[in-house]
């Protein structure tokens, strides 16, 4: 940047580009300091929180809560507390061990066992608290009381699965020399029906085919997607007492 200026001795060309340079350098230096400050005092990494819940064929509900930090460069200490609560209020809780490694990973898993005679259908709630201790905030993971300074539950995750059961009524359809064959009654509008049950007569007392089979299959539904997952197997009971219909054992919200 140049301009003409008049002086007592005449007119000369003044080059003040050095001023511009200094100005630009000052701005750049300021920006650099600001960026460094932002970096030095910025956010310390991030954690991953994961929760899941699933059922086994016998109706046991499992819950898992995970707190992980695959790039734990700040040396944070993590742990997870997971609680599973049934519709009737039964609950079970687990606390993971602590992890502060670079690939920190903690997992707390708990379960509520199934009972064929007390299915406890409805919503099973999983709640996980994802704890962390930050050494730069004075966090002491060994403190006997938590939360404490620098140690706190940084996030909470919730998950709900809906548990129910399909009861299929299968009258005895026909008998062979070796087997009793039961077929699902019609209509049988349940989520997880069983079409046919074949039993070896040798496995039955007196090898006598009883009149009815009833199969209970416990399913779980993801309320978010509405997807029902049927089990691979269920509990089958045989009786001469007539079953009249298929039934759905569920709590409809």
């Amino acid at each position, binding site marked *: 940047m140049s301009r003409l200026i008049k002086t007592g001795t005449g007119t000369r060309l003044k080059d003040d580009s050095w001023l511009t340079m200094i100005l630009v350098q000052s701005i750049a230096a300021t920006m650099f300091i600001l960026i*460094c400050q932002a*970096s*030095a*005092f*910025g*956010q*310390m*990494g*991030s*954690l*991953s*929180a*994961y*929760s*899941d819940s*699933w*059922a*086994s064929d016998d109706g046991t509900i*499992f819950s*898992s809560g*995970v707190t*992980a930090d*695959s*790039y*734990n*460069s*700040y040396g944070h200490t993590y*742990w997870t*507390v997971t609680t599973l609560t049934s519709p009737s209020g039964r609950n079970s*809780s687990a*606390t993971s*061990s*602590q992890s502060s*490694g*670079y*690939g920190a*990973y903690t997992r707390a*898993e708990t379960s509520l066992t199934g009972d064929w005679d007390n299915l406890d259908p409805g919503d099973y709630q999983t709640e996980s*608290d*994802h704890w*962390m201790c*930050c050494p*730069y*905030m004075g966090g002491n993971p060994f403190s*006997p*009381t*938590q*939360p404490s300074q620098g140690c*706190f*539950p*940084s*996030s*909470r*995750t*919730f*998950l709900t699965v809906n548990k129910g059961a399909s009861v299929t009524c299968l009258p005895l359809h026909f008998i062979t020399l070796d087997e009793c064959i039961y077929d699902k009654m019609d209509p049988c509008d349940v989520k997880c029906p069983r079409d046919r049950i074949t039993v070896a007569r040798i496995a039955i007392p007196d090898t006598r085919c009883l009149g009815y089979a009833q199969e209970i299959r416990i399913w*779980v539904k993801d309320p*978010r997607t509405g997807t029902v997952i049927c*089990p*691979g197997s269920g509990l089958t009971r045989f009786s001469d007492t007539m079953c009249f219909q298929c039934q759905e054992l569920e709590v409809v919200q």
Partner: protein
Amino acid sequence: MAGSLTRLAPGRTIALASAPATPDNPPGTIDGSVTPQLIPDSTAYQLFFNFFSNRTASERGKLQAYCNKATLASLNLDSILAAAAYYQQLVAPVDAQAQAIRDGNPHATAQDAALVNAQFAHLQAQREALVTAVIAKLPDFVGPDGAVAIRQHIDGRIKPRTKIVPGPNMPMNGIMP
């Protein structure tokens, strides 16, 4: 949980004082149930591999039930466990290097942390590359169809149930800003 005793590790318990309300989604959280596409593959796959890692034989039934109720039903559980073990084997040296860096700076202050962190940058890149390598090798463990099933599991189940929560802000001179 207020005032209750919780088992933390064998032989040690902590008392949980009345905890402040835990934020479900602190500011800046990426909630996979809302935006699963923002959960990186590497994060989701690492959660998957870790989920199947360090399990005892008594946990097989529980894990098999997990697979049966997901897109993993057709996969052999042992092949998933083998892939998870392979992942652990690959990342262990990187984690050991990181621990050595941390051990070399035992009294790092908040101000030092950012400088020490620069040393971790290449380890993070290295770890990311290893995760990518394990994902690419999955068909060797579970077959091509199995790898597709795991991909579906990652997208359909892991990511929607994952949150990425930002860490706390670095304290200034030991005092939280």
